């Protein structure tokens, strides 16, 4: 079975083979001898072909968030079937044309910079969120039109709360 791991725009492919009740992992044809041990508190010790690694792994929102040696990687793991399925669905959904913008962080809405019905271009500032004494601009990721605005200036919002619907 092939399994795909995506780190942002890079992909590593592994091959898994059932082997005598265990699981053999290959990458580019080479066997990776491995041992993963849980240390509690989401900490793991991984030894691969004698090399030793210490990782913190938290699973959230379908991603594995991995910290290793002060570096951070969000990783998606998919087997071949899952990947094909997702690509099919993604392609189908691709043309649907509405984009819901949610709050990336909790904060206070200090300004709403657009109005319903307004035409916007990629990069336009839609809304300003204040958190921790810093202002954070929420910008348009693509051209479009503002269909609905769910918040007004002065509102406190939670993470992932709906802000604006773009068409």
């Amino acid at each position: 079975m092939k399994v795909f791991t995506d780190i942002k725009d890079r992909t590593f492919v592994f091959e898994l083979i059932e082997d005598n009740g265990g699981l053999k992992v290959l990458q580019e044809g080479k066997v990776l001898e491995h041992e993963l041990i849980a240390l509690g508190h989401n900490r793991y010790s991984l030894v691969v072909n004698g090399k030793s690694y210490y990782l913190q792994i938290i699973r959230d929102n379908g991603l594995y968030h991995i910290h290793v040696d002060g570096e951070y990687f969000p990783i998606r793991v998919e087997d071949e079937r899952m990947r094909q399925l997702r690509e099919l669905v993604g392609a189908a959904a691709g043309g649907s044309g509405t984009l819901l913008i949610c709050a990336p962080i909790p904060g206070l809405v200090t300004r709403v910079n657009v109005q319903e019905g307004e035409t916007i271009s990629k990069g336009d500032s839609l809304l300003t969120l204040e958190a921790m004494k810093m202002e954070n601009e929420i910008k348009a990721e693509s051209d479009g039109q503002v269909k609905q605005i769910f918040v007004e200036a002065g509102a406190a919002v939670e993470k992932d709360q709906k802000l604006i619907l773009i068409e």
Partner: protein
Amino acid sequence: MIKKVLIANRGEIALRIIRTCKEMGIASVAVYSEPDRKAPFVYHADEAFALNGKTSQESYLRSEKIIKIAKKCKADAIHPGYGFLAENADFAREVSKAGITFIGPPPEAIELMGNKTRARKSMIEAGVPVVPGTESAIKDINDAAGVAEKTGYPVLVKASAGGGGKGMRLVSDPADFRSAVEGAQREAGSAFGDSAVYIEKYVEEPRHIEFQILADAEGNVIHLGERECSIQRRHQKIIEESPSILLDENLRREMGEAAIRAASACGYRNAGTVEFLVDKHRKFYFLEMNTRLQVEHPVTELVTGLDLVREQILIASGQPMTRQSSIEQPWGHAFECRIYAEDPENNFAPSPGRIHHISPPDGPCIREDSGVTDGNEISLYYDPMISKLIVWDQDRMHAIRKMVLALSEYEIQGIHTTIPFLKKVFQHKRFIRGDFTTNFLNEETGLFNGQTSHEKVAALAALLLHQVQKSRKKLVSPNGQNTINWKLIHRKNMLDVR
């Protein structure tokens, strides 16, 4: 001698001050807002009183509430830390009026240095170099050309009403001066409705270098060497070091003497910092004076062996300072990193949340000044700095390697932090060479992303954990810890997983 200190602050600096109080046998009093009830500075203080309220405005900025508590618990001194009320002359005055010692400079010094124009004038009188230029708007273009000539090219022509670079011109060749002024005036006029412009020397390849000052009640002023703080993001220092690679003994002495003149000129007392810009010609210019303890004071502590909070308390008590002369030769090299609850992968967006697990690095010559611990909530109400990581080593090269190791070992779960970003800065060739200016992070935007050798192992770990979780056959060991279901995973050696 001071017997009880109320700390009018929060987070790492409150805890930092409490620790020195404890060592000196001085009682410490914490005041805290609602979101801070579980913070270490509250339960490590000897006494703790609620300010109530969540925002800074409702709590740490309420001077009258703080002074009332200080009177009630009979504190004989207040330490303001940095930020909040630390550079508020009125607060310093109110504290004194209540018969309580303000651990900081006289209010007059705070006021003078808080006013850019007065400070600049006073520095010129004291013979401290300031960035040359006209102090007021240009009326006559011939006078202006004369000023530019005296200042020395390149010069900046800036809109008096300006901001954001509008109405600004950089002039390198005197032949371009007239047209530049006229252009700037036109642009300023249309942008701000005010066409006045002024002239300032353009500081080429500026570096931010500041001097730590101590001044006692008898008028003795010494400096403790410099800190270089050129690595900044959005004008916010994020990495500081001492000594600076740019300075030699002569320049250190010259700048140190200027810093002492600056402090003396405003009748300074207690710990303060004189900030300079240094250009590519090694010319230095007064920027401002911070009339309080700095965030980055630990690097000075490590290369001088002094505890600056202890010195502050000694000075405020009218006691002699530990040393009476300036530092000539720093002991080794120190770096500080500010660790923020921000997501460097997402344009440094704030990353509030609960810290599930925090484990700072330990080992030789690593210092962590932290304000948080397991289970603490990083709230939206305050500054996102959660701790400072400081290292020392015999020289700059070794200290850089030590910081890379320390950042690599630092574990924080539950929130995003700037640790991965900081590690990239410390591994950057220009940073390692010491070849940078205050524009470093703007120039090196590549730091914000990029790949590393650890990607592959992270991918493998995710894959293995995914397979285990998919099988839903987790073993729970007798001690309650999860162990991986080994049946699923090919292993070479059986281990007794305890």
